């Protein structure tokens, strides 16, 4: 199916997608959460009629706008990149993948774009209540767009609701609802959006802590802290639940990703969770080396997390690569053999149809049906290719979880001292609150690194590896656009941070 694979080109294309996705995700979570926080602030203003709350709303809204613009800038490229750099992917699954993207445009982006203008420029042009409504619509629109794109991503992680059509050599949608309500899509959506709420809360709390340390805008800072830390705590709880749900669906639908997340090579019953560890980077599937240079384990917890049963069996990388008859696990080795047969049958089918040999075509199509389940594996050359980079996946997962566990504790302390009225005297806590902003961003990035690196080598899990999904370009071309995007995004990021810093320094307008 693929004449020759230029690995450097694939890797540049992956690097470019990673670059644009990571840059985009710097800005999106803040948009998701801050839009709601601004809506809360404005709701309080409209209810109380207190102009102080209006100034507070406008201040956070200014920061929201600065962040929003660059989120839009980094977002447009991602949509088109599916076509430009992953054109074979676009054709093979455009039937399924395009639909949520189009729905995103219709349902979500226009809400954002239309009401954004009211939110920023409508203060004197529309009524108070319509303005508030618009602010809420921006929040709903932003989060709706997250829904559709995460449905699309969820489908790539766990393809469902479709069938392979051998005549067009692509996958075609059979059930829109199965795509929309796939368990992976749901857990992606809830986990990603609530983590955005948490990040935005940390952002608001952190900046407010800075004002308290500076002894400036103290009333505004305290008010912001109350709303944001409550929202942040609720969100953090939800992030925890949805994270547990996400881990469970990964275990059920992407066992290889789970094994890599935990550096688990030999599957076991009552599998322990590695709470922290140093990966042995020389370790390969099937060898006798220890997977960790050192580790701290919690007995039975991984089995509980993965299967909701502390005594259950969790397959490891070796089981998934070489198979495990006892546990009825078919290994990648065997899947590759079947997959190669499937590809060969598909080729025979297409050629015999072309030459008009209907009998052979029918026979190969029938046989193809028995093997097509593993067709994606036919593109792999060795079973170890089915293993994602274990180190990156492991560390990304653990960084995400550890940082994620710190945030609710900090927020709880801040809220506690705020309620007692002594927060301004807890300098250490204020510094900790500020530190949570960069930590929040690290946690966010780690989450997506885990999601995307952990599903390698697949563009569509089990069906289409990235090496087959990409466009027919030279690596020089993709390298050039990679650096073009790296350059412009970095420039814009510097500008964004500089503008944000200045606006924070200026603070809300004083009476």
């Amino acid at each position, binding site marked *: 199916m693929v004449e020759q694979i230029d690995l450097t080109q694939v890797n540049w294309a992956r690097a470019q997608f990673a670059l644009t996705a990571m840059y985009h995700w710097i800005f999106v979570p803040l948009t998701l959460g801050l839009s709601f926080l601004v809506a809360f602030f404005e709701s309080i203003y409209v209810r109380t009629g207190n102009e102080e709350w209006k100034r507070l709303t406008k201040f956070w809204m200014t920061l929201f706008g600065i962040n929003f613009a660059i989120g839009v800038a980094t977002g447009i490229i991602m949509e088109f990149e599916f076509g430009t750099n992953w054109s074979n992917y676009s054709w093979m699954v455009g039937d399924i993948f395009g639909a949520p993207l189009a729905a995103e445009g219709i349902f979500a982006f226009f809400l954002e774009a239309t009401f954004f203008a009211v939110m920023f*420029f409508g203060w004197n042009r529309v009524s108070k209540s319509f303005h508030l409504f618009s602010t809420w619509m921006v929040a709903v629109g932003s989060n709706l767009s997250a829904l559709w794109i995460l449905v699309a991503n969820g489908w790539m992680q766990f393809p469902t609701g479709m069938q392979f059509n051998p005549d067009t050599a692509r996958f075609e949608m059979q059930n829109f609802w199965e795509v929309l309500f796939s368990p992976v899509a749901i857990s992606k959506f809830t986990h990603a959006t609530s983590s955005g709420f948490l990040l935005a809360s940390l952002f608001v709390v952190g900046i407010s802590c800075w004002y308290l340390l500076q002894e400036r805008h103290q009333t505004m800072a305290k008010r912001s802290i109350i709303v944001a830390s409550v929202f942040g705590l609720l969100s953090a709880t939800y992030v925890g639940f949805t994270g547990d749900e996400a881990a469970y669906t990964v275990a059920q639908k992407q066992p290889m990703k789970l094994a890599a997340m935990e550096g688990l090579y030999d599957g076991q019953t009552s599998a322990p969770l590695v709470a922290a560890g140093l990966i042995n980077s020389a370790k390969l599937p099937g060898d006798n080396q220890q997977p960790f240079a050192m580790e701290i384990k919690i007995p039975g917890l991984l089995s509980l997390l993965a299967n909701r049963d502390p005594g259950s069996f969790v397959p490891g990388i070796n089981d998934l690569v070489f198979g495990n008859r006892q546990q009825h696990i078919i290994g990648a080795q065997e899947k590759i053999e079947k997959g190669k047969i499937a590809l060969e049958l598909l080729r025979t089918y297409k050629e015999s149809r072309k030459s008009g040999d209907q009998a052979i075509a029918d026979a190969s199509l029938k046989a193809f049906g028995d093997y097509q389940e593993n067709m994606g594996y036919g593109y792999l050359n060795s079973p170890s290719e089915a293993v994602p980079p274990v180190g990156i996946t492991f560390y990304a997962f653990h960084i995400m979880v550890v940082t994620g566990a710190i945030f609710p504790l900090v927020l709880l302390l801040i809220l506690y001292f705020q309620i007692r009225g002594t927060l301004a005297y807890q300098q250490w806590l204020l510094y900790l609150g500020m530190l949570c902003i960069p930590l929040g961003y690290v946690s966010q990035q780690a989450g997506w690194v885990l999601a995307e690196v952990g599903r390698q080598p697949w563009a569509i899990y089990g069906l289409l590896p990235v090496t087959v999904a990409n466009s027919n370009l030279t690596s020089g071309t993709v390298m050039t656009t990679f650096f073009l995007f790296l350059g412009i995004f970095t420039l814009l990021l510097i500008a964004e941070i500089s503008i944000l810093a200045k606006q924070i320094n200026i603070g809300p307008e004083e009476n």
Partner: protein
Amino acid sequence: MIGNLDYSTLQHIWWIITSLVGSLFIFLTFVQGGQTLLFTVPRGDEEKTLIINSLGRKWELTFTTLVLFGGALFAAFPKFYATSFGGAYWVWMLILFTFIIQAVSYEYRKKPQNFLGSTTYEAFLFVNGSVGILLIGAAVGTFFTGSSFSLNQYNQVTWQTPYRGLEAARNLFNLSLGLFLVFNARVLGAMYLINNIDHKTLTDRCRKSAWKSFLWSLPFLLYVLVNLLFMQGYARSPETGEIFLQSGKYLQNLVGNPATLVLLLLGLLFVIYAVTITCFKGKNNGIWFGGLGTVLVGLAVFFLAGFNNTAFYPSSYDLQSSLTIYNASSSHYTLTAMTYVALSVPFVLAYIAYVWRQMDSKRLTIAELKSENAEEMY
């Protein structure tokens, strides 16, 4: 009812929907056209800021429509998405690049400590309005002039030139279409500003500018139209699906489908009427007629390319690799599902129109830029 539509009807419906979104986008490029006026029309920073704030209330609509255009093409004609974006790589990448730099420019231009300086952001806006629109026009031109690509039996595209789509801009027809779009966007931009801004001397200059841009657009428009009537086109045999070159194909499409001819003529008339009342009658509502006219002309152009058994994305290198609405579309199921989704479009248009009215009932003045909400202004 939608569930019973046959495949071919759905393919036609989706070409109409995609064409409509594309045409609305071309209308909304009044934002881009307005951006190209920044260095010539306003006198002084105050007027420039007024223009930017006026356009700044609308730029996201244009941007979003472009994104939706991409999404609609992906959902309805994924083979086009894969072939054109993956093939004509550079032309699309450069177009996107100009939109990336646009997206931050409104917000960052006036903000203190903006790192690149106001002039850079203004230049970004100018590049988006000129180079961006020119390249989009050139890319649409290839719907008629064709591109050099081939598809293998698995529909993977091989582009035949190292320029990756940029070669489109070397073709006089494509270039003319691009330049026409640039000047038309300038006309629309000026008319939008006249409608949106309350500032006599500035809008007077906009009227002059609209007239000049209109005159500039004419030779390119004529070149495109005359060529369309006489050029050979990429026809599809209804029986075999085979693609072949046919002389006067687009003329035949026009005559064979009078609705398209009516759209084209009506559209042109509306644009001419809009320019006349704006430049000589002192009217402020030219943008509506100009906008409607632009949409109608856009629809006619897209219909010419896609309907009546025509290949809308032809390959001049390998005729049989050409894309038609039949061979490039999504499955019957997906088109049906997406048609249900598209039922919400009138609702979306309605709330956009409502908000537009709410926001633009009072025209923008310099005084408002200095009001209590000054810090929110661009």
